[in-house]
Every structure is written in structure tokens, then in C-alpha cells.
């Protein structure tokens, strides 16, 4: 029995293609309402054609929702992050003297603004105040300043596992007694940069992504932001905040195979999941639901699927699992955070979330995801985020420690 303080989730906020709040996201998940649509907001040759998980608010509308003057330089990534923060922080009083840190995550950073205004920078001064917003650490600083967080502020950038790693670090800091509270999460907005890039890798589907389906053709990109408020059990108790869940386990490992493709047997994913279970002190059989990375690329789903079969000891033993990326798209650095929120909703709602667009199991695996919302006992959820660079992360969320 560990004596280290447990890290509980006492608040959360999310903004994605399926909703601007936790409640909206939950409603969409419950009613199988995907947010993937043809690209609408970004000037691009793919506009009206490419399927994306776009948040249906323009930047002007985001400024308005946050009450930020439009002449201040906030990239779309920053705006999405602030919207999610607003919800997550609703009941947090940072004047309560608790040691609070902010661990954020991104890959796009200010790229959305840079690609919009770069040509302009030389011609006119109109948008030059956006120049400093380009680097990945910038919006983290903006958040820290707006909320007055000074103790411990950092940004993680490890591709699609970024936010999961932020959550892992926050939980670790709390367990080590170094922080009482860690606000953890991530944000990435859609950009031509990433859209064109993923297209060049020929893993972008020309139709709605179908995770774990034999005929899947690739991913749809999405944009999102989510933050969790992690607190030590003692802090949450003193502040009379009801834990939504416990971050009971976490693990990270490298696949050491290829820059972007996953190894055939998903070794990195397997090691990360094993580490997470070890930290949680749980056997694989304790997991009631796996929220998979499930990007719907031919490579990921086969590789991750194999790792799941290996971890649980046979395809019959794999618990109920799904990928929620058919709702939101692959939100890159934010994925680990929004899917943490969804994993926690599975615990609070006692339900397994649906894997949309599924028809045929992957022949080589013989496992079938849960395709409909299913009310069932959920005590422990495993959530995977597997990033380029072989960076594999896995988190365990529990109803009780």
C-alpha cells in the first residue's frame, strides 16, 4: 500500500468538435453524434472537402466567448486552451495558497497564426504583435499569466502523447509531494501545416475515419483543448472538492522502431500500458474499459490492437474498448487530455463510450470495439496516446484508489 499522496481529478474542461463544455461533449458521446465535417474555417485547397474535427467557432467568436480584446495576440491554440481552462478552473481559487503548477502541451503552438499572418509581417505592422506567439511555450505563459500561476510552469511537446505526458508529470509531482495542485492538459488547433503534412504521409482518410475497422483508410485530423485540475487527495479533501477520478497509473516508453510508424507488435504501447498498470498496482484484468489511441490508420490500429491482445492475454480477454477519434478527429497534442476527460466521464457515467464507423473487425486481430454507448460497471479505465517519435504513453483512471 503506497503512502504517496494520490492524485485526484477535481475539475476539468474540454472544447472539441463535439462540444464547448464537458456537458456538451458528454451529450454527443452518449448520442453518437460525431463532430467530423468538411473543413470550413481555414483558408485551404481542402476547404469543403477534407473531413476534420473542427470547432465551429471562428477566432473572433472565441475572443468574444473569452471576453478578450481582439487587438491582443492570441493564437487559435491559445484561445481553445483558455476556453477549456475557463471551465476547468471554475471552482479553483488560486489564492488558497496551495502550491499550484501548470503543465501544458502542444505541437502546433502558434503555427495557426504564423501561417495566417506571415506574409503580412513584412508588408505591414498590423499583425506583427502575433510574432511572439509562434513558439510552443508561448500560450502556456499566457495562461500562467492570466491565472497568476508562477510556481511551476512548463510545456511538453512529444507529438500525440504530449498531453498524456503532461498529466503523468502532474500526477507524479503531486505524488512526490512537490505540488498540491497541477493543472494539466494540452491544446492544438487545425492548421494547413498539419493538414498538408499528414496528407503527404498518405494516412489521411478521404472518408469518415473508422477506428479498428478492417477497411479503415486513415485518420481525420481535429482540434481541441482540455485541462484537468489534479489535486492531492488531502488538498481536495480540505477544499471539500469531490474527486471525479483518481489518476492511479501512468507509464511512458519508446517504441524504438521508426520515426512515425509503430512497430508490428506495438512494443512501445505494450511497455507503456504495463508501466501504467504497475504504478496503479493493478492486474490487466482490473481494467473495465480501454480508451484506445485508435487513430484509424492501418498501422496504428493493428499495432495497438496487437499490444492490447498481448497485454490482456488473448483476444478473448481484451476488455471493452473503443476509440473516440471518430467523434473528434485526431487532436494531436490535445488528444491525451480530451481522452482523459472522456475516460473520466466513462467512470462518472459508468458507461463505455462508442467507437463509431465500425463494421468489420481487423482480421489479424479478432477483436471488436464497443460500438454503442453501454451502461456497465467501470472501475478502472486505461487510456492510450501513442505519438510520433515512438513516444507511447498510457494512463489509468480509477473511480477509487
Amino acid at each position, binding site marked *: 500500500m503506497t503512502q504517496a499522496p494520490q492524485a485526484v481529478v477535481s475539475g476539468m474542461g474540454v472544447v472539441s468538435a463535439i462540444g464547448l463544455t464537458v456537458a456538451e461533449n458528454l451529450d454527443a458521446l452518449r448520442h453518437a453524434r460525431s463532430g467530423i465535417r468538411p473543413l470550413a474555417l481555414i483558408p485551404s485547397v481542402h476547404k469543403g472537402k477534407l473531413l476534420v474535427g473542427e470547432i465551429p467557432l471562428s477566432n473572433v467568436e472565441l475572443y468574444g466567448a473569452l471576453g478578450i480584446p481582439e487587438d491582443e495576440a492570441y493564437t487559435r491554440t491559445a484561445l481553445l486552451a483558455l476556453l477549456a481552462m475557463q471551465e476547468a478552473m471554475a471552482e479553483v481559487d488560486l489564492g488558497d495558497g496551495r502550491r499550484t503548477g501548470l503543465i501544458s502541451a502542444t505541437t502546433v503552438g502558434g503555427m495557426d497564426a504564423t501561417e495566417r499572418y506571415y506574409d503580412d509581417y513584412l508588408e505591414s505592422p498590423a499583425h506583427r504583435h502575433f510574432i511572439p506567439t509562434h513558439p510552443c511555450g508561448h500560450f502556456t505563459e499566457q495562461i500562467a499569466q492570466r491565472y497568476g500561476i508562477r510556481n511551476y510552469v512548463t510545456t511538453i511537446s512529444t507529438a500525440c502523447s504530449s498531453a498524456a505526458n503532461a498529466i503523468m508529470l502532474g500526477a507524479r509531482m503531486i505524488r512526490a509531494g512537490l505540488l498540491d495542485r497541477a493543472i494539466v492538459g494540452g491544446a492544438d488547433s487545425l492548421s494547413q501545416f498539419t493538414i498538408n503534412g499528414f496528407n*503527404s*504521409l*498518405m494516412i489521411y482518410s478521404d472518408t469518415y475515419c473508422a477506428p479498428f475497422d478492417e477497411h479503415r483508410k486513415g485518420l481525420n485530423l481535429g482540434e481541441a483543448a482540455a485541462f484537468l485540475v489534479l489535486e492531492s487527495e488531502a488538498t481536495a479533501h480540505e477544499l471539500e472538492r469531490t474527486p471525479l477520478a483518481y489518476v492511479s497509473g501512468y507509464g511512458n516508453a519508446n517504441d524504438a522502431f*521508426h*520515426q*512515425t*510508424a509503430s512497430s508490428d507488435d506495438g512494443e512501445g504501447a505494450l511497455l507503456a500500458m504495463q508501466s501504467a498498470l504497475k504504478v496503479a498496482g493493478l492486474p490487466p484484468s482490473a481494467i473495465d474499459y480501454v480508451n484506445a489511441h485508435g487513430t484509424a490508420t492501418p498501422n496504428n490500429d493493428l499495432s495497438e490492437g496487437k499490444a492490447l491482445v498481448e497485454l490482456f492475454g488473448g483476444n478473448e480477454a481484451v476488455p471493452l474498448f473503443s476509440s473516440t477519434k471518430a467523434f473528434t478527429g485526431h487532436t494531436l497534442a490535445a488528444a491525451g487530455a480530451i481522452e482523459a476527460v472522456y475516460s473520466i466521464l466513462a467512470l462518472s457515467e459508468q458507461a463505455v463510450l462508442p467507437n463509431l464507423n465500425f463494421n468489420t473487425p481487423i482480421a489479424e486481430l479478432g477483436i471488436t470495439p464497443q460500438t454503442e454507448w453501454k451502461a456497465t460497471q467501470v472501475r478502472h479505465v486505461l487510456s492510450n496516446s501513442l505519438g510520433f517519435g515512438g513516444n507511447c504513453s498510457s494512463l489509468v483512471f480509477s473511480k477509487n484508489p
Partner: protein
Amino acid sequence: MSELTQELKERIIKQLNLEDITLDDLQDDTPLFGDGLGLDSIDALELIVMLDKSYGIKLADPKEGRKVFETIQTMADYIEANRP
């Protein structure tokens, strides 16, 4: 035909950053993937881009690429047969 294979060799060495390979190392029938040159999946994608940009041929299915890109010769044959 040999002009095309020569051109392909130069293009491939440049496009794929094969800085330690000389033109002499690259025979018309050197296997590009697997044991020969050891190119990987990203290289295959680059070759698909090259096929499009330099020869106007669009290869929609990366899996078809493996056959086309087996050797310099198979590439040259494919280009000759399919260039617009």
C-alpha cells in the same frame, strides 16, 4: 531508356538524401527496398511525390508503390508506360 534511368538515379540520390551512395553503387537492378538500398516507408512516399511532381504520374495507393519501386529499372518501365 538509359537516359531515364540515369536521371532517376540522380533524382533519387538527391531527393532521398542518399549522401553515402554514388551513382555507381546504384545499378539498374539494385533492389531499392529490403536488402539492397534499404529504403523505408517514408522514402516510398517521397518516391510517390517525385513520380507526381517530376513525371506527372499519380500513385494513389502506397501499396502499389512497392512493385513500381522495386528497382530503378521497374521505375523507369512504369514511367515510360504511364507518363502523360
